[in-house]
């Protein structure tokens, strides 16, 4: 079985507990305007040509983004930092792109991880079928669940898809008993106002079993990549929320009893 990935990051320390290795799946059903990894959106490897000036000479270099890997071989690769994972109670994180966009590969790797006693996290947009979502809940140890907007139309404009499936799957996930952290990318110019966040808080309050919320302030990190990958950069109207605003938002969620972190 093959899986298309675009990166592996070792010593990943912001993608879950302990020292982790994160594998980034390529392909995503959403196309968020603020996406840091625009290369992760389309499925399958992509070839680009880049000009590099090296030692004073212009070199034309082919750059391939994304590669197909055999799932079992990849698992062994991800397990290379096992000593560090064991020592730190870390594990493997599946991110993307959307890992659930290649469900069979994801399920197989989650199963193998469980057989080998490796802690797993899955970072998902939740835009998938109920059956798949339930299966991820069953096979993984921790789910990072992205939530962008409660307003379906707005959601569709800025991510390309409506939010109904996402909200329903989040309810399922919260009830499944699997540990879940909701991660909210907070983008000034999209969703940083009370009118966006209060309904979100209210919705989350109604979920059984949800304990933790991460606030992820938007940073224009990935913008240089858009040009490289011939994608339209729509981030011109976006801003990083002020520190003050982030503190207010943190307060909003922590006041409702959520363990709330900024970043993470």
């Amino acid at each position, binding site marked *: 079985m093959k899986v298309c990935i675009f990166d*592996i*990051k*070792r*010593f*990943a*320390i*912001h993608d879950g507990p*302990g*020292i982790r*290795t994160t594998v980034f799946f390529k392909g995503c059903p959403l196309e968020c305007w603020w996406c840091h990894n625009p290369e992760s959106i389309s499925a399958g490897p992509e070839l680009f040509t880049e000009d*590099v000036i*090296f*030692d*004073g*000479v212009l*070199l034309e*270099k082919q750059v391939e983004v994304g590669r197909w890997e055999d799932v079992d071989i990849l698992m062994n690769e991800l397990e*290379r*930092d096992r*000593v*560090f994972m064991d*020592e*730190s109670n*870390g594990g493997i994180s599946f991110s993307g792109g959307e890992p659930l966009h290649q469900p069979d590969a994801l399920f197989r790797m989650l199963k193998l991880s469980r057989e080998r006693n490796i802690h797993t996290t899955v970072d998902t947009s939740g835009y998938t079928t109920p059956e798949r979502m339930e299966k991820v809940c069953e096979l993984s140890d921790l789910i990072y669940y992205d939530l962008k907007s409660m307003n379906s139309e707005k959601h569709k404009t800025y991510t390309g898809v409506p939010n109904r499936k996402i909200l329903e799957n989040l309810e399922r996930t919260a009830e499944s008993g699997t540990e879940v952290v909701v991660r909210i990318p907070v983008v000034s110019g999209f969703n940083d106002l009370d009118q966006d966040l209060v309904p979100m808080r209210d919705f989350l309050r109604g979920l059984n079993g949800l304990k933790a919320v991460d606030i992820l302030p938007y940073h224009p990190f990935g913008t240089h990549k858009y040009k490289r990958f011939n994608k339209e950069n729509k981030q011109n109207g976006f801003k990083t929320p002020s520190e003050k605003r982030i503190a207010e938002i943190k307060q909003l969620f922590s006041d409702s009893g959520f363990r709330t972190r900024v970043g993470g």
Partner: protein
Amino acid sequence: MNERIEKLREQSLTAVNSLSAERGVLVTEFFKQPGISQLPPTMQRAKCFEYILVNKSICINDGELIVGERGPWPKATPTYPEICIHTMDDLDILNSREKVSFAVDEETRNAFRDEIIPFWEGKSNRERIMKILPGDWKDAYAAGVFTEFQEQRAPGHTVLGDKIYRQGMLDIIADIRSGIDRLKTSNEAGTPMESPGIEELEAMEVTARAMILFAERHADTLETLAVDAGPVRRKELLEMAAICRKVPAQKPDTFHEALQYYWFVHLGVIIELNPWDSFNPGRLDQHLFPFYQRELDNGTLDKEKAREILQSFWIKFNNHPSPPKVGVTAQESSTYTDFSLINVGGLTEDGDDAVNELSYLILEVIKEMRILQPSSMVQISKKNPDDFVMKALDIIKTGFGQPSCFNTDAIIQQLTRQGKSIKDARRGGASGCVETGAFGTECYILTGYFNFSKVLEITLNNGLDLRTGKQIGPETGDPAKFKDFDQVMDAFRRQIDHFISIKVKGSNIIEEVFAEKLPVPFLSILIDDCITNAKDYNSGGARYNTNYIQGVGTASVTDSLAALKYHVFDHGNKTMPEMMEALSSDFKGYEAFRYELLNNTPKYGNDDDYADELLKQVFEYYFSSVEGRKSPRGATYRINLLPTTSHIYFGSVIGAMPDGRKSGEPLSEGISPVQGADRYGPTAILNSAAKIDHLKTGGTLLNQKFTPSFLETEEGMDKVTRLIRSYFKMNGHHIQFNVVTAETLLEAQKEPEKHSDLIVRVAGYSDYFNDLGKDLQDEIIRRTEHEAF
């Protein structure tokens, strides 16, 4: 830090390095006396030691609590003309050079010109050994295949155990006397032991008595100073005088006495000769803890007083720069820090967690003092608490490069593998940069660095050294005709063997000269079992004897071999003649190929078995070539992997190499990856590094650079702790962290005056960034930053 210490610290930081003729003049006066040459060499050295200690000036600095300076005042640095002579040109360079200068005043110049140089010319040890070293040694040395530590220095590189906390010099003299009696009795009984044993013991006694005299002279001066001092200082001075009258003659009973005793002994060792001054008290928290505890219990000491005495002790180290070399342009070692490495933590001799209250107090002292010397390290055993590691990281994150982290459990296994008893192993640690040793019982001598990449370059040229144009290695075959990669490795292995044989032959010759001409009776009374064996430290008197050869550029040579295997033999991208052409043109016209070499070729440091398997092979070649060879004093040759700063000098003598390194550029340092070659972060580096069998070495050095942001949160600190623990679980020997931003370093390069306190880890030790040469500064900036992803 209280006002006293702040003042002392400021004095030490602002004191100017200067060259002192005092020791040189005294040694010259001594040897000019009639009849000296009739004495046996060991007695000559003992009497010379006594002559210096009786006649050198006594320096007591305002406000200090621990007394004694090697020179006439702080940072006045002596020379050792019996080892090597500083010429008038050397003095000019030392006085005027930009980095780490030593002021030379007119009086000093005159003393060198009129007294020291005329007497010693033709008689120094350096001239003596250069005369007798064979031609093949000189050729390989000139080509830059290896260096030789004992060319300008005496053997040493040892660390004190707990002996002085149990015995005063008078107790030691009693041991020496009974040794003499025993030898005399056995002589009379008709089983004659050769007289050198008795001579050696008698010489030891002279040095022990000289040490007592030296302390008495300090007591005299302290009492004189007390006459005119204010009431508070007068009381202190009289107490200090009483301490100097008691130690080192008798064993210490208080915390203060213990530290003053050590300091006298330290001065003795570095005045007797210049044993590349890594000499240090070693397991300080272990040695001092009984004194500390006893005095806390009976109320004669409190934590703050102990802190103040320790801080005063710390300053003494910082007042003593390492003596400058001759022929100063040599870049072999461009920094002049002493290498005193205080060990904190680890295990007790019974194998229990040794971290105690004093370990934490010493960490606090290190953090507050923030000075270059003494350097410090934490010994981390799996039995030590995480809290201890976190406290160390708390200092590391302030970015001054101390303490470095060592794996106690690996050190103990290294020592027991070498045949040390488990107790002696647990009393040991690391000294200098990262060198494993059994403290108080071992004479372990670093003999020089070994340039792996140079040997590969010679291999690729069929034994010819391109730079000197001499055929200095055997003809191991024209690489253009090699059919497979194994032939490259075979040829490389034979060249390593060839040059190790030459290196060992040279070191053995030098060792015999030191044994015969330059014994060290004072150092010998400190290291067991020199007295019992009635044998000098330099002649094999110590319980354990080891000679190390330090391999340099592990990653560079691995990457070059990987590039050859990958491009020439496995993928056929280039033929061997094409590769050689690219190298000889320093990659001019081969830019695209060099790009591939740097970016798309397996490299060490990425947990890539293709490259790392070659590293293991190089390690095995080196290990099996060196390990087990014997020296005249009965030492066993062994390996370690550390560069100090020699990777820069070694790089300067090598042309372009297959790893993509251009001609003259520095090599990789320690077992760290080539600068910029690692792409997968610290865990991949540590996995690669752990493929080396650290337990077969006497130390390896791994540098990791982190930006401070990484250690800002408790969580970040915990993850770095886990990183260290994981590496040590895999038997990694040592890891140290440079916590600075590249930005800061670049700023410091532009405006050095604004960053005079910036200390960075160089390689196994820290130094002021401003004192480093530009090339070394650039290299530290280049080392990969591991920002959190």
